[in-house]
């Protein structure tokens, strides 16, 4: 095959390119946090953090870290001019009632009907932890997924039906992977674009589910 997967940073930049000027965005913990590093110049995009921050800025220099000012991943951040603080119930009101334009979340699996699984593998001995994932999945105007297309063992994370425990029902509208951008439609997955050199036929053969052109 003659294609090259996107790196995490390339994927983050690809997603950032689709975030419109003036958007209110929540970036989930883990990989989606990288999107903050690639916001296009000239756009004013306001990042929300579930722990009560609107207008998050970049990470501070190490000598300016203040652990009263952290993101959802508990990493130190800064506050932009115009930012504000609020309590947890107000923060989740923002997240749960469609005030955010976009939530970008990681995923274990996304199903053709938009179901999302990203909080629990369902393993018997695993400690479950959900945080704000379920709130974001169903609360934002648009829920985007950022993930590798395949698991480490080569299985497709795009599936007909999720086998892992669900985070939200029919909530995902778009998926960005290291191989492709895919919309979730009423008819199932629909290709937006592939990485250079990867055909839809190849993508379909890698995925465990049909992706329409």
């Amino acid at each position, binding site marked *: 095959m003659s294609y090259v997967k996107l790196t995490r940073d390339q994927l983050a930049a690809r997603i950032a390119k689709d975030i419109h000027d003036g958007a209110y965005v929540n970036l989930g913990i883990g990989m989606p946090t990288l999107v903050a590093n690639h916001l296009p110049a000239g756009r004013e995009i306001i990042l929300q*953090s*579930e*722990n*009560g*921050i609107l207008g998050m800025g970049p990470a501070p220099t190490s000598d300016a*870290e*203040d*652990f*009263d*000012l*952290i993101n959802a*991943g*508990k*990493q*130190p951040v800064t*506050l932009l001019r115009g930012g504000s*603080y*609020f*309590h*947890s*119930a107000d*923060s*989740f009101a923002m*997240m*749960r009632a469609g005030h955010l334009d976009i939530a970008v979340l990681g995923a274990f699996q996304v199903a053709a009907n938009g*179901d999302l699984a990203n909080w*629990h593998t369902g393993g018997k*001995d*695993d*400690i*479950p*932890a*959900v*945080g*704000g*994932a*379920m*709130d974001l999945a*169903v*609360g934002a105007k648009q829920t985007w997924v950022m993930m590798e297309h395949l698991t480490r063992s080569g299985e497709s994370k795009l599936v007909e039906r999720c086998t892992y*425990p*669900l*985070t*939200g*029902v029919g909530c995902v509208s778009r998926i960005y992977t290291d191989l492709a951008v895919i919309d979730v439609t009423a008819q199932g997955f629909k290709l937006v674009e592939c990485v250079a050199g990867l055909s839809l036929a190849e993508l379909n053969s890698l995925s465990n589910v049909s992706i329409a052109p």
Partner: protein
Amino acid sequence: MIDKIVSSIADALADVCDGATVMIGGFGGAGMPNELIDGLIAQGAGELTIVANNAGNAEFGLAALLKAGMVRKVICSFPRQADSYVFDALYRAGKIELELVPQGNLSERIRAAGAGIGGFFTKVGFGTDLAKGKEVREINGEMYVLEAPIHADYALIKAEQGDRWGNLTYRMAARNFGPVMAMAAKTTIASVHEIVLLGQLDPEAVVTPGIFVQRVVKIARSATVASGYKAA
């Protein structure tokens, strides 16, 4: 005269009984009332139900409370962290009960208790394992789950400034669960870094009005430490 300022953490916590439900503020290290938690460990009440966002890091604060065997049940959204090994071991050994709640349902359920709401319908969690057994209902074409308020006997929260009426301000993202927990508990105990005279707080900028706070105790300021994340 109203004077909610108590002179020591021990005094503030003296009446916590076995079996109490205790809310503990904080998200990461921000707003985590470690001094009050240490006071609770020293106080010794057992069989506690803890309501918090996380379930402790390493072996300090909430993790130390768990390790001391004082906690019967944890209601939280995100127990599993890089350094939550105390909780993890107790949970795997079946020695602690966990009620896992999506974080927004957690804060909304806490607020509901503080606002006199008997229950509310939310979309969050519908169709997931965390809504199993809960009443569901279709409202305007969308599916909702009925969630109950979470009341508490005590709330332990960390604020920034306080006065003798119990008015509080917070510092940056350390605000998080403090204001809603203060509303939901019968007795709210706030540690503050500064006690100010009545009238020194701007009435427009008081975040928690004193009616929601029963005891205020001053603690020394120390920098909030990193907590609960694995560096990339």
